[in-house]
């Protein structure tokens, strides 16, 4: 899968909805003033390994940018002692701090520059975004929660975020079948015993059991109590997958927020519906994949690594 494809895929998945320029940019910015010498820009670029230097006025407002190619020109013309002001580009393409990830991406696509300054409403420079910053933002999104839905096959082709191991067999399997909450948690209790019998340590077993329990309870209170709980536990790694048959989660981003819940008062009286289940799972798992969508099944896969203890 190429970078362009994965960006395309992630865009469809709405995974970038929470990313704006201020969360993508680097804030350790090296800027110069118009009256500084071109030589200073050259030194800065060399020392900081950067390919462009933003130029700001006395109030930190962005007034220009100077790139490597300008420096090379200035060098050829013997103008290193001139002021930055005389060689800088004045019509800078910049981003606003609240610009969406979409805007950032289209900026990179439309203008073939390697970096864009980010400014506040008042024009003050607050950061820079390079293609590396964009890439790390993408990678961070992948790592935190990787979510996707039916559009996945369209956009990601054969790429699968889920472990392939479950296709052949699982080390542990339990059918969730509960009307109401009476059996809710039975599967996780069995999983816990199974993991202990495999010799995993207390702490990883606790993490895996708590997360399996949260996911199992979710099947019981949000998905009609029908589903499965499976696990693969080998080589210091525990993979737990909990699946149900719907109705699915319409907005996964929202469901991951602490305190967000669609549970009824009746459920709350039974001790659930704090909107903390999925946040807990994210907290205690080392890797988390949630695949769902409106009127779709929900698959929650969590990985726990013994060496992360």
């Amino acid at each position, binding site marked *: 899968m190429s970078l362009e494809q994965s960006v395309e895929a992630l865009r469809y998945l709405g995974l970038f909805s929470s990313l704006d320029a201020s969360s993508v940019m680097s804030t350790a910015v090296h800027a110069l003033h118009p009256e500084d010498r071109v030589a200073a820009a050259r030194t800065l670029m060399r020392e900081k390994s950067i390919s462009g230097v933003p130029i700001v006025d006395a109030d930190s407002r962005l007034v220009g940018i100077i790139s490597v190619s300008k420096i090379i020109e200035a060098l050829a013309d013997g103008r290193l002692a001139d002021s930055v002001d005389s060689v800088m580009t004045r019509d800078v393409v910049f981003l606003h701090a609240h610009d969406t990830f979409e805007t950032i991406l289209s900026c990179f696509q439309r203008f073939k520059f390697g970096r864009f300054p980010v400014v506040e409403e008042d024009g003050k420079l607050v950061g820079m975004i390079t293609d590396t910053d964009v890439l790390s933002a993408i990678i961070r999104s992948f790592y935190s929660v990787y979510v996707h839905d039916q559009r996945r096959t369209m956009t990601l082709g054969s790429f699968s975020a889920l472990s392939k191991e479950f296709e052949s067999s699982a080390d542990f399997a339990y059918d969730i079948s509960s009307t109401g909450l009476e059996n809710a948690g039975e599967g*996780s209790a069995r999983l816990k015993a199974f993991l202990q019998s495999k010799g995993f340590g207390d702490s990883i077993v606790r993490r895996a059991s*708590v997360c399996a*329990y949260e996911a199992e309870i979710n099947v019981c209170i949000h998905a009609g109590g029908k589903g499965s709980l499976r696990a693969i536990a080998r080589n210091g790694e525990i993979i737990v997958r909990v699946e149900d048959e719907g109705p699915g989660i319409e907005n996964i981003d929202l469901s991951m927020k602490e305190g967000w819940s669609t549970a009824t008062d009746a459920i709350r009286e*039974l*001790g659930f519906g704090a909107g903390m289940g999925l*946040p807990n799972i994210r907290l205690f798992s080392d890797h988390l994949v949630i695949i769902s969508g409106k009127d779709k099944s929900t698959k929650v896969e969590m990985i726990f690594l013994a060496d992360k203890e």
Partner: protein
Amino acid sequence: MKLSEVLEITSATCIVGEQLASIEVNHAFASDLMSDVLAMSRPDTLLITGLTTPQIIRTAHMLDLPAILVARGKDVPQDVVDLARTTGIVLLSTHDIVYVASGKLYVRGLSG
């Protein structure tokens, strides 16, 4: 704090696990929302709750909590008692409400 002290301080009765009353807990956590409890990861904690559903036992079991103090003197259903017994969790019951039981234990040195 020994569970026998918890018993005495809150005038509780032991529903399951008399023989285990010498177990120690170093913290307590009071809540009626299980996911709040599950967010905490400290095994040597006493769970204080006003609920009497099977999920209080499940929750304690997942977290390796040794004991639960049920507040307000509520009747604990037999299936919950049985579950506590099979999972090896001590179940105590006090007539105090959650707030009062927590306060009593806190002033006697059981921290949050």
